[in-house]
C-alpha cells in the first residue's frame, strides 16, 4: 500500500524528556530495527510509557531527536500504538475497524471485507455487530489490536496492554501479538510482568529512572543480568 515509505529503523539520538524540573527520560540513544519482539521492562515511573510515546511521535523530546526511517517528521506512517486502556469509538466493533482502515487510506470498497478478515484474525468475528463499548476488557483490547493491525504497521508499540486483564484475556492478546510478530511486524511492548517477558521477548530493554540500564537478549537478561539494578529487579527487590 505504502511500501515505499518505511518507519524503520527507528532511531533515538541523545533524547531527554523533561517536565518542569523533573527528568523523565535522560539522554537516551538507541535504535530499533526489524527482528524479534523487544520488551521494555522496569519499575513504575522508570519512563516506559514516555519512551513508547516518543517512539510513536505522541511525545516530543526536550533535547535530542527521533527519526523514523531517516525522517524526523512525526506523522505515523507504518506504525501503530496499543494503549493500556484503548478508547472504543461509539459504534460497532466492525465500524471501529472500518474507521481505522479509512484513516489508514484503505479504498472504500475493500474496507468491509478487510475489517471482517481483521476481526476474524483477533477472534471477534462473532461480535462484529456488537457496540464496541459493550465488549469486555479483553475483547476491547483485541478490537484495539485489530484497529492497530488495520494500519498495516511495520512496528507495533504496546503500552502494558494486559495490565488490567485476567489470564485468559491476557493469553488472547499475547497470541495475537505473537502472530503479528511472526508475520514480520516489529513488536515493542512495555510490561512489568516477568512471565510475559519470558513468553514473548526476543530482547529486553531494562529502564531505571529514565535511563536505559541494560539491553540484552531476553534469555541473557533473565538468567544472567549484567547490572546490579537488573539483578535486584529480577529478585523482586524495589529498584528506586
Amino acid at each position, binding site marked *: 500500500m505504502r511500501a515505499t515509505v518505511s518507519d524503520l529503523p527507528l532511531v533515538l539520538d541523545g533524547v531527554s524528556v523533561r517536565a518542569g524540573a523533573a527528568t523523565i527520560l535522560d539522554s537516551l540513544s538507541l535504535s530499533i530495527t526489524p527482528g524479534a519482539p523487544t520488551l521494555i521492562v522496569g519499575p513504575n515511573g522508570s519512563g516506559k510509557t514516555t519512551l513508547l510515546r516518543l517512539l510513536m511521535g505522541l511525545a516530543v523530546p526536550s533535547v535530542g531527536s527521533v527519526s523514523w526511517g531517516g525522517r524526523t517528521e512525526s506523522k505515523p506512517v507504518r506504525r501503530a500504538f496499543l494503549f493500556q486502556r484503548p478508547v472504543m469509538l461509539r459504534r*460497532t466493533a466492525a465500524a471501529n475497524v472500518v474507521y481505522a482502515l479509512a484513516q489508514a487510506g484503505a479504498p472504500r470498497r475493500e474496507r468491509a471485507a478487510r475489517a471482517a478478515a481483521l476481526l476474524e484474525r483477533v477472534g471477534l468475528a462473532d461480535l462484529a455487530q456488537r457496540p464496541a463499548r459493550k465488549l469486555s476488557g479483553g475483547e476491547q483490547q483485541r478490537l484495539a489490536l485489530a484497529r492497530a493491525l488495520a494500519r498495516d504497521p511495520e512496528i507495533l508499540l504496546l503500552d502494558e496492554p494486559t495490565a488490567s486483564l485476567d489470564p485468559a484475556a491476557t493469553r488472547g492478546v499475547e497470541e495475537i501479538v505473537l502472530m503479528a510478530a511472526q508475520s514480520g511486524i516489529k513488536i515493542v511492548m512495555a510490561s512489568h510482568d516477568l512471565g510475559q517477558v519470558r513468553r514473548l521477548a526476543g530482547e529486553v530493554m531494562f529502564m531505571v529512572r529514565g535511563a536505559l540500564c541494560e539491553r540484552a537478549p531476553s534469555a541473557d537478561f533473565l538468567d544472567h543480568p549484567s547490572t546490579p539494578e537488573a539483578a535486584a529487579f529480577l529478585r523482586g527487590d524495589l529498584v528506586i
Partner: protein
Amino acid sequence: MSDQFSAWQLIINGDAALFAIVRLSLAVSLSAVALAALIGMPLGALIALTRFPGRSVLVVLLNAMMGLPPVVVGLAVYLLLSRSGPLGAMGILFTPTAMVIAQTILIVPIIAALTRQTIEDLWAEYRDELTAMDVSPAGRMATLLWDARFSLLTALLAGFGRAAAEVGAVMIVGGNIDGFTRTMTTAVALETSKGNLPLAMGLGLVLVAIVLAINAAAWGTRVWSERQAG
C-alpha cells in the same frame, strides 16, 4: 363558568385557530433549532479543537451570550430587517422567516457553547487514540461530533427550550399578527393583557405539555439509541 373551560374546549373541539398557532410555534422554533445546530455545532467543535490568540475571550463571550435577552435580539433583528435597515429590501419583517432568524441568533450561542464544552471533554479522552490513527483535523471534528451525539442531544433540547419559551424576540420581529405570526407565547401575552386569564392559562398549559412531550421523546430516543450503540 364557560370562560374557565374555554381553553380546554378549544383543544377538545380541535379548534383550527389554536392548532394553527401551535403549528406555527413548533415550525418556527424547530426550524431555528435545526439552523442553529448547523451553525452552532461545527462552530463549537472548531473552538474546542483549535488554539488561537483570544480564544479564552471568545469562550467567555460565547458562554455569556447564552443569556442574551430575547428582546435585545428581537430589536437588533428588527433594525436589520425594517424598511430603512440594511436588509429592509428583503421585506421579511413581520413574517415567520424573521422569527426563525431571530430565534436562530438567540440559540446559536447556547448550542455552540454546550457543544464546545462537550467536544473539549471528549477530545481529552480521544486525543491520543485519534493522533495515533493519524486522523485529519476535519476528521477529528466529524468523529467527535458523531461520538458525542447523545450528549449533544441535550444541547439541542436546551436550544429548543429557549426558543419555544421566549416571547420577546418573536413579538418584536413577528408582530403577533393573528393567523400569520401569532405563536403560543405571544398569544399568552396578548390574552393575559386582555384579561382573558383562563384562555391564557390554557394556552400556557398546552405549551408546557408540548415542550414536555418533545423532551420525553428525545430522552426516549437517547436511551434507545445508546442501548443500540453503546
